[in-house]
């Protein structure tokens, strides 16, 4: 540095390069750490996907390779033999073990069976078995059929879609009321509504359960669907925040043209609130898809009506000896929300950004 200090242009160049290199180094390190974290984070997903393609024996074998594979076998003169990785003078060969011996064994080369048995010096127990990739794709249809996935899926979809429509429409109405109208006790009512966010649902569970039993709705979907048509605090809050950002001028123009509040709401407010409505709809869809406690309690004893979440839990209890089927079922379950999320990601994030907060 001392040498270059009297050459301003050269020094500038020198600093420029190191700064850039340092930046690249820093970026590289950050990227590497992020990738590592990502890999750790995705590890269970990868494990689930890989294991769901294994056979039952492979899942239970602690020495099994990571990818789904079956021990290779070779049929020689009417009998099946295990294939091993045999180190020979020509490198490692995959040979089938025919006659086992302590210090030497007889193998046959599947690529050249006419050569007959080959004597190999060494202990066969030290050899690694040869394996070939073998994906058990039929785990998926098996899981699908074993737990009657179609019915679970349809139940869940029915629940998610009807409550999505109900929750979003009713919440939009309530939010519009809180955002645009003046009425006595508005502040207090809004506080009470927001208070229900903090109130644990378990507190109201016993009385609501007793009530629904009294009117004979337990064991059906009604206690789960009907309340969703009466708005909920999260959605109201989000939509209200968004409605507040919509300028008043357009509504005033609509009022001058003779539109009533309902007309204004449908033709002016809603079309401008599409990002927020999309975000709220998707949040609700994910919530309903994952909802577990409600269906568990209200549908108890009615397996025909179970949604995926509850069905999968019981499947887990019944088939604990077949982890590959459970994992296949789990992967099928997590695909729909994941696909919807990736497809709607941009609209979704936009909605989250404009509404500020979410569920």
């Amino acid at each position, binding site marked *: 540095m001392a040498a270059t200090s009297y050459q301003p242009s050269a020094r500038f160049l020198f600093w420029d390069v190191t700064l850039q290199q340092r930046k690249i180094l820093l970026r590289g390190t950050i990227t590497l750490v992020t990738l590592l974290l990502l890999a750790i*984070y995705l*590890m*269970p*997903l990868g*494990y*689930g996907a890989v*294991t769901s393609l294994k056979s039952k024996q492979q*899942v*239970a*074998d*602690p020495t*099994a390779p*990571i990818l789904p594979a079956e021990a290779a076998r070779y049929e020689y003169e009417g009998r099946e033999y295990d294939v091993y990785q045999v180190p020979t003078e020509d490198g490692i060969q995959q040979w089938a073990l025919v006659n086992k011996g302590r210090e030497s064994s007889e193998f046959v080369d599947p690529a050249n069976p006419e050569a007959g048995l080959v004597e190999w010096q060494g202990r066969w127990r030290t050899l690694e078995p040869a394996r070939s990739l073998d994906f058990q794709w039929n785990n998926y249809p098996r899981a699908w059929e074993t737990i009657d996935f179609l019915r679970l899926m349809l139940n869940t979809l029915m629940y998610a879609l009807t409550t999505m429509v109900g929750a979003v429409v009713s919440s939009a109405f309530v939010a519009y009321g809180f955002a645009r109208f003046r009425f006595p006790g508005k502040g207090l009512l809004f506080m009470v509504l927001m208070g229900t*966010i*903090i*109130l*644990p*649902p*378990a*507190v*109201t*569970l*016993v*009385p609501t*359960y*007793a009530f629904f039993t009294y009117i004979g709705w337990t064991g059906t979907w009604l206690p789960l669907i009907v309340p969703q048509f009466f708005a909920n605090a999260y959605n109201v809050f989000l939509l209200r925040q968004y409605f507040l950002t919509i300028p008043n001028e357009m509504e005033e123009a609509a009022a001058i043209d003779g539109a009533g509040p309902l007309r204004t709401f449908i033709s002016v407010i809603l079309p401008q609130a599409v990002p927020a409505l999309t975000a709220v709809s998707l949040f609700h869809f*994910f919530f309903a*898809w*994952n909802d*577990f*406690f409600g269906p568990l*309690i209200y549908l*108890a004893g009615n397996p025909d009506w179970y949604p*995926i*979440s509850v069905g*999968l*839990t019981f499947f*887990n*209890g019944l088939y604990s000896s077949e*982890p590959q089927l*459970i*994992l296949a*079922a*789990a*992967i099928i*379950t*997590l695909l729909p*929300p*994941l696909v919807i*999320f990736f497809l709607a990601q941009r609209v979704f*994030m936009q909605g*989250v*950004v404009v509404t*500020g*907060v*979410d*569920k």
Partner: protein
Amino acid sequence: MVPAIAATLIWAQVLNPQTGWLNRMIAAVSPIEAVGINGLRWLDNPSLVYIAYTFIGIWGIGNMILINLASLQGVPTALYEAAELDGAGWWNKLWNITLPMVSPVIFYNLVLSVVGLLQYFLVPFVLNGGSGYPEGTTRFYMIYFYKQAFTFANMGYGSTLAWFMFIIALIITALLFGTARHWVYYAAEAR
């Protein structure tokens, strides 16, 4: 975004002491004998079970990351430019701009997750059907409540339990709101 049931079922296998990847990875990179009879039995060992549940819990923070990402994107860049002109380094920018600007969202997440965790139910219920295995370490409040109210049809006792939880939730949220005055920044109030 991954449904909690699917995530729990997958984790149950990842944590399998013999064949799960977690133990095999630990055995591969460290001298700990994770696999085997004396290996790390994540879901059977009372002193490991909470760590295992923590793994599962941390895996489910995607939603919160999403919310935080949205709020981070909402911080006006003009603030950073102004701070840079005043000679602020990255730490100053993080401490004096980013954190205060996103603190309402952090607070919101904090309150919701505390209230949510008081009702921790799904993971232990899926893993052991609410039996509290091993040695009652996973008998969480909601599990007990569910057993009393809906398995033993003990509704009166269940209601009491639920109200007790409400009081606890109320106290905790009140405390949180009390601390919020000191660290949560609301732009509207400053005006």
